């Protein structure tokens, strides 16, 4: 380590590190490791002060003012209240919805997408059924009309494990899925069809 001895104006001995011209601390040597007498970098000190101020303000906002955005139950209540207001405004203007079989390609393609993403988890992608019933045969447990199927998808059959989708899929999307079943899946031959359930139509 390059260093040299210098005397300051009070005639005290001190050493400097010649590569940086910083002052070395006397007697600080550990297995040859020396330490410089540098002060804390000012930007570092300011960073520390700012974070402390932030922390204090933050804690005061939580403990003293109980600010809405920092008390999570309140934050949640506010989020839900905003949504409720928006929903009421929207439903007032919505047109009446008709449950009618869709046969156009766009709707059926949309229906297929929903089928693969959601329904297939229990009824399998080819509709052969596994946990849920086979959707390709002529046997139905809860009826075979578009209204019957729409009703099952909307409200579910909880005791049998079929979930209600009214809070997950819009009216239109539920109808698309149901139309896909009736138009596309009905009458096909799946790889491993589940045994018929319900009554033949």
């Amino acid at each position: 380590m390059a260093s040299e001895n210098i005397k300051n104006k009070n005639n005290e001995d001190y050493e400097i590190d010649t590569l940086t011209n910083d002052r070395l601390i006397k007697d600080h040597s550990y297995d040859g490791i020396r330490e410089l007498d540098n002060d804390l970098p000012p930007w570092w000190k300011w960073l520390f002060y700012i974070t402390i101020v932030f922390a204090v303000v933050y804690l005061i906002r939580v403990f003293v003012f109980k600010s809405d955005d920092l008390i999570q139950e309140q934050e949640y209540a506010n989020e839900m209240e905003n949504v409720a207001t928006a929903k009421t405004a929207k439903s007032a203007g919505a047109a009446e919805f008709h449950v009618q079989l869709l046969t156009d390609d766009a709707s059926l393609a949309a229906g297929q997408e929903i089928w693969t993403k959601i329904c297939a988890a229990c009824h399998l992608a080819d509709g052969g059924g596994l946990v849920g019933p086979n959707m390709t045969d002529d046997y139905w447990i809860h009826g075979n009309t578009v209204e019957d199927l729409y009703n099952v998808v909307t409200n579910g059959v909880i005791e049998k494990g079929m979930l209600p989708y009214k809070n997950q899929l819009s009216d239109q999307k539920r109808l698309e899925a149901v139309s896909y079943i009736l138009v596309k899946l009905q009458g096909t031959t799946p790889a491993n069809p589940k045994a018929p359930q319900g009554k033949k139509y």
Partner: protein
Amino acid sequence: MELQKFTYDNKLSRMFLYATVLWGVVGMLVGLTIAFELIFPNMSGGLEWLVFSRLRPLHTNGVIFAFVGNGIFLAVYYSTPRLLKTPMYSKTLGQIHFWGWQLIIVLAAITFPLGLTQSKEYAELIWPIDVLVVIIWVVFGLNLIMTIVKRRVKHIYVAIWFYIATWVTIAVLYIVNNIQIPTSFLHSYPVYAGIQDALVQWWYGHNAVAFFLTTPILGMMYYFIPKASNRPIYSYKLSIIHFWALIFLYIWAGPHHLLYSSLPNWAQALGVAFSIMLLAPSWGGMINGLLTLRGAWDKVREDPVLKMFVVGVTAYGMATFEGPMLSLKTVNALSHFTDWTIAHVHIGTLGWNSMMNFGMIYWLAPRLFKTKLWSTKLANTHFWIATTGMLFFAIPLYFAGFTQALMWKQFTPEGYLAYPNFLETVTQILPMYYLRAFGGTLYFIGLILFVINVWKTIAAGKFVRYQEDEAPAKPAPKPNEAWHRKLEGKPLQFTVVALVVILIGGLVEIVPMYLVKSNVPTIPSIKPYSPLELEGRDIYVSEGCYLCHSQMVRPFRSEVERYGEYTKAGETVYDRPFQFGSKRTGPDLAREGVKSLPNYKPSSWHYNHMLNPQKLNPESIMPPYPWLIEKDLDVSDLPAKIRVLTSLGAPYPVGYADGQAMKDLQAQAAEIAADLHNAGIEVEPDKQIIALIAYLQHLGVDLYNGDSQTQLSNK
């Protein structure tokens, strides 16, 4: 002044060096394996010992305690005697420490694949191994402190401060977090339950990062950077300030792992505030490391050792900038439960911990074996491959985490979740998992180059077992020393002060969680688990389901819509251990059993899904768990389990453990088997799957069974 002669024994340094290299390879190989398992879910081939959820704890514990751990001990056993001018206090204690630690690692590598775990992250080891860890840690501490006592220098150097803080704090954290009551030789329940257990665990978990992955590595940095660069430490004053600020502030930050959980707002707020204040003290370490290299940057260009150190310290700075940012609740609302966290921790581990270990060993190996590094060029290649690998690992995961978080929160204009099917959000980010595995592969290739280089260096040299040194006897203290300088001359007092400083934060946060009733408001409908559900829960814990599935619905519209009512502190009171999880590779399961909610699945679905997840969801990345269907449920410990839980306050009827519990278990199992039979599935009621289904079908049910007006704040 008369010089005293003494000798350093390098034997333990050599042993720890070998262990570091060996466990580095093993730990990272397991990590690479599980990175590929996330892309190829059937890679485990139906073998229970190789499934992701059992290997993941092996990876985390392996790299933390085996790779980094042995590296820390290497640094301590090499630098401490030289800094204190005395040999290590006891060779015998050193040997016990070394072999005891390796035994612990081997036991971990056996027990985790067998599904023996406490399920607390980085504290998964079962209780008999915990006892061994504590014994070995005390042996290490005794050896360290007695060496300090016998020193020839008056003052202890900053590296030693960090070693001392590491030792006392890890001792406190490890013991407190692992207080468990055994039900058998291999199983136990924690004395803490639910949200309290979670707070203690993350006080531990966060500070394992602080006091195992940070403070000892800073100690390592303070010795090896000035040695390798032959430069003085930038600022002694900065050392003092950042050391004390760091150890005092760090211990408070644990609750930032539980933001938006059912932890009370006051505790979360403390976690946030102290995490923000940690930024400057952490960066104090970084700048003291980097600025020490002033005047040596020309060397950094050529020397792979210094290059490794520079990237290591810079990665430390990046990770400790990101940490406070992730502690802000708005950022955490996005990052938590996603791959963002995985990216963040790997900047710390691949960047900081590993690079520091590599740099140290590249510097030490030639010195311990009195030769030159076999190939500087190869070491430089390692450096570039490792740096690139780290970026290929982390950047895709940042992107994945951010993307998935936004998808979880996205609503359609009609007010429905845009991606109601969780799997869609996984499929979307799967390409990022491929890139991560590629980055991991690069990093591992770099590691192999490191092993070759170290091996060749050792083969070319001759081990220097004993090194002579000399120093004057310990001088008397000088008068008029500054207060901190005085403290540096009194290591035992120094240790006590450090202990007091690290105890404050933990006490302020943890004690009120026990003493103040309002922190965990009682929910009357929450009942203890039935015997079968309890056994099913223990299977859930043992298989490591919590590693991919959380049980903590946060109070956001998007989560309540997707999963159901957000999690309350009072519903966790019988959860030993808590199962909040920290990552959602799959959906949250806190409400899995509630029939009116979107995630409900019939028992037959669970049966089919455990057997072959891809049959139900072709794109699913969940591995199969076929053994759950074949293996019998072991109920021999049921009475002991019920007794332990009763002693911890679960209100089972008097004498329930002796007879009635088993009858109830069998009755419920028969019910589930009958339910499956009705769905066309034949399975004996004494199989593990039955218990697991019982548990899954119970999740969230008690909360929804209660008075909906008072318990459920919405709907």
